[in-house]
């Protein structure tokens, strides 16, 4: 019997930071010494390979494995930096029925044998890809921006997590964690953005982390490194590292890391919008 934990990273809305979050959490877990596999479920529009800097080494993918054209071990791409971190890439096929329910079940079951943590990066939307990504999860990380449409879509996703997953069908309740990304402290202070408490209140899901809007996220994606590996001291990396410790069961208060502004940064504060 394996002790693996399968986590789905989901949001409903696109562009809120699911892939960034998946890569950052998977890497932070691997840095703690766990055997970790990140699985890209976004068939047709894979991007986790690009964010993890593995795009040039992808040969086989999730669909090849589901169809029996390659074994899981052949399809796994090992991370350049951490040898206990792996990626199972999505395929670029346009066939949206490429993934089958049974196929995904057997892939997840096999991954449970090899890994401590399996992080499933869900596609946007509430279609088949998204429901398959969450289907076999033990826990869910719900990614939301502090913005109305994103929060509303998260609410739909929470409904699906409580209805369409294996855990729910077996009468259980899926443990959920809320990750708020692209948080802008200044705008929250001035009242122009939903505050974290507002989002937590509306969704009634405990907060696992707040990731501030940070130029380091873009920089990390440019060079193909998960933000937690690119610059450990950046506010976004610190937020993800703390969130990972909470995922591991540590009870630490949620803080919102801020950009460390040097003397010049303070002088020119507000210059860079």
């Amino acid at each position, binding site marked *: 019997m394996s002790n693996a934990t399968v986590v789905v990273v989901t949001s409903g809305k696109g562009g809120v930071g699911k892939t960034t979050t998946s890569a950052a959490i998977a890497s932070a877990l691997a840095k703690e010494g766990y055997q970790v596999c990140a699985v890209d479920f976004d068939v047709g529009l894979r991007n986790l390979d*690009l964010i993890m*800097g593995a*795009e*040039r*080494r992808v*040969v*086989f*993918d999730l669909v*090849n494995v589901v169809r029996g*054209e*390659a*074994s899981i*071990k*052949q399809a796994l*791409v090992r991370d350049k930096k951490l040898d206990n971190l792996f990626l199972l890439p999505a395929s*670029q096929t346009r066939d949206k029925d490429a993934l089958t329910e049974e196929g995904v079940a057997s892939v997840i079951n096999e991954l449970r044998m090899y890994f401590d943590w399996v992080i499933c990066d869900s596609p946007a939307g509430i279609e088949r890809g998204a429901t398959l990504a969450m289907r076999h999860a033990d826990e869910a990380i719900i990614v939301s921006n502090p913005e109305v449409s994103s929060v509303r879509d998260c609410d739909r996703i929470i409904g699906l997590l409580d209805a369409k997953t294996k855990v729910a069908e077996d009468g259980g309740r899926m443990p959920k964690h809320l990750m708020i990304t692209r948080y802008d402290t200044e705008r929250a202070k001035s009242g122009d953005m939903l505050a974290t408490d507002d989002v937590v209140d509306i969704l009634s899901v405990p907060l696992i982390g707040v990731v501030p809007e940070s*130029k380091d996220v*873009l*920089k990390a*994606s*440019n*060079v*193909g490194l998960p933000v937690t590996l690119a610059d450990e001291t950046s506010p976004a990396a610190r937020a993800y590292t703390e969130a990972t410790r909470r995922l591991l069961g540590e009870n630490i208060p949620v803080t919102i890391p801020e950009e460390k502004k040097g003397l*010049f940064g303070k002088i*020119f504060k507000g*210059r*860079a919008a």
Partner: protein
Amino acid sequence: MNILSLFGKRGERASASVAKNRLQILLAHERADNGTDAVLISNLREDILAVVAKRFDIDPNAVRLEMDRSEGVTTLGIDIELPPAAKVS
């Protein structure tokens, strides 16, 4: 524009040019490829497996083929895990 913003911009341009380069390599490849890589690697694997199996008793799952593409060159890495008792026969 002051001298500090010049420094800041330089740093960002550096990572942006890495991004551009990565995308160019990837997209050139994706536009040309229709799963031919997977077929090629799959066939190569079968061939290599057959040759190695003549000398060693190997687990088919312990053979990994990796392709790495960069601007001008594509490399093929073959990683075969030999059984603990493997000896040259």
